[in-house]
């Protein structure tokens, strides 16, 4: 049985004044444990809605999300979402260490070992030495690392990431891509990743699910089988990399074009 299954998920938002927006038309997919799966699609296609529904933060209008055979009806206990707006998600009143410890506290692990674990995670995301800094003192990339460390402190089975590098500059993005891959390889978490950056998706994932324009559905599924560990230079310079990337690009362009 798959770890996570999305079954016929649909979401319609009702606006004031009676207008409705169909964000998600019908999405179904299965995620196996340990996979790195990315969702890619044109902007406004409801990717965030999809992730929020899987995370149990939004109730779907139809369909369900099943994790370990149980239907999701609220935030599931073994899953964490890393938000795009890290500056709105990090706790400004806690230091880096405090934020990461929050992940542990949420798991009810408040012990001496807890502090050590937090420190090792901070080291893992490359922020050693910044434990006592406050979020506002850090750059965007560093802040997102804190958010990731905090999420990992929770030891989730499934990690959802909503365009986590969307607001960062290109170089930082590349750095963090490798950081995430490193963490994923070490911790063997299942990751669901949203990005609008096609090449990023191709670089990171085992599988890419392409979403259509609103109301979204999955229009194609691609298996990405480049060798791991991936490398920014080697992997990306393979001819097949560009082929896949172009294919996705064309598909999405056709989706966005007015019909």
């Amino acid at each position, binding site marked *: 049985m798959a770890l996570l299954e999305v079954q016929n998920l649909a979401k319609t938002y009702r606006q004031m004044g009676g207008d409705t927006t169909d964000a998600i038309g019908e999405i179904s997919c299965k995620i196996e444990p340990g996979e790195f799966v990315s969702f890619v699609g044109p902007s406004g296609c409801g990717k965030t809605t999809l992730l929020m529904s899987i995370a149990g933060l939004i109730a779907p209008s139809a369909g369900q999300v099943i994790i370990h055979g149980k239907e999701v009806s609220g935030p599931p206990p073994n899953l964490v979402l890393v938000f795009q707006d890290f500056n709105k998600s990090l706790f400004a009143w806690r230091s880096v260490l405090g934020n990461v410890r929050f992940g542990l506290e*949420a798991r009810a692990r408040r012990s001496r070992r807890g502090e050590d674990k937090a420190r090792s995670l901070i080291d893992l995301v490359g922020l050693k030495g910044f434990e006592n800094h406050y979020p506002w003192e850090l750059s965007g990339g560093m802040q997102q690392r804190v958010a990731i460390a905090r999420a990992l402190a*929770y030891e989730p089975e499934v990690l959802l990431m909503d365009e986590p590098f969307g607001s960062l500059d290109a170089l930082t993005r590349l750095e963090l891509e490798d950081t995430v891959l490193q963490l994923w390889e070490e911790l063997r978490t299942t990751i669901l990743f949203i990005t609008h950056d096609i090449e990023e998706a191709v670089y990171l994932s085992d599988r890419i699910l392409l979403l259509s324009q609103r109301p979204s559905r999955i229009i194609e599924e691609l298996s990405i089988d480049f060798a791991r560990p991936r490398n920014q230079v080697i992997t990306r310079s393979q001819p097949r990399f560009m082929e896949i990337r172009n294919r996705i690009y064309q598909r999405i362009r056709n989706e966005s074009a007015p019909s």
Partner: protein
Amino acid sequence: MNVGRDFNWAGWMLFALLLLLWEFGSRLSPALQSYLPPVSRILRSLGELIISGQLVRHLMITLSRFLQGYLLAASIAVILGIVLGYFRMAHSLFEAVIEFLRPMPSVAIIPVAVLLLGIGDAMIVAVTVYASVWPVLINTIDGVRHLERTLIDTGRTFGLNRRKILWLVVLPAAAPYIVTGLRISLSIALILVTTAEMIAGSRGLGFFILDQERSMNSSNMYAGVVLVSALGYVLNRLFVLGEGWAMQWRRGMLARESI
């Protein structure tokens, strides 16, 4: 803004000049002396009143009423504010009542309080509580209502229940707003205590000042004014110190914003 080290010669000299004008102007004109006794005489009265213990007694009474009123108001207002800010239902229910009572100056409640509680400590503390609740309540509601959705969703994705979210996320995030309200209430509370003492009291600094005015003891009156102002100043300083200590994480953030 100049940083500390340079002493404001011009400012202090102007101030000293004014005091000297006051001192000698008052001495030269006997008619003026009954309204505006020389500074030296005021200071002498102040000293005598303090040593005799008379003024200290009034001070303690005012201070005690202030503390009771302020602390009680703060507790009520913060709790109520969080509830009304967080639970949409509760807020919409009470919104009309709040909007109706807000524009009415709190001092208008003094006659009602006298009716209900006579004159004395209970009445004075009651009106102080009533008046001091408003700034804290409004600011707390404001702070909680304007919390980023993402922040609350972060709490939820980490599996926190409602109570934990209120305590670990909402309260610290709304703290700056709450503190602003508490600071405003500080002055309001002192104003209400002294006012109530003037209108319907028989002890306390407010009463003392008015009483001395009625008996034409102007230097005693001014001595009282000086003392109550000093009280206000000290309370304010203590608050700022406490705020700085409690909100350490903000200090740096605010400094940065002001660049």
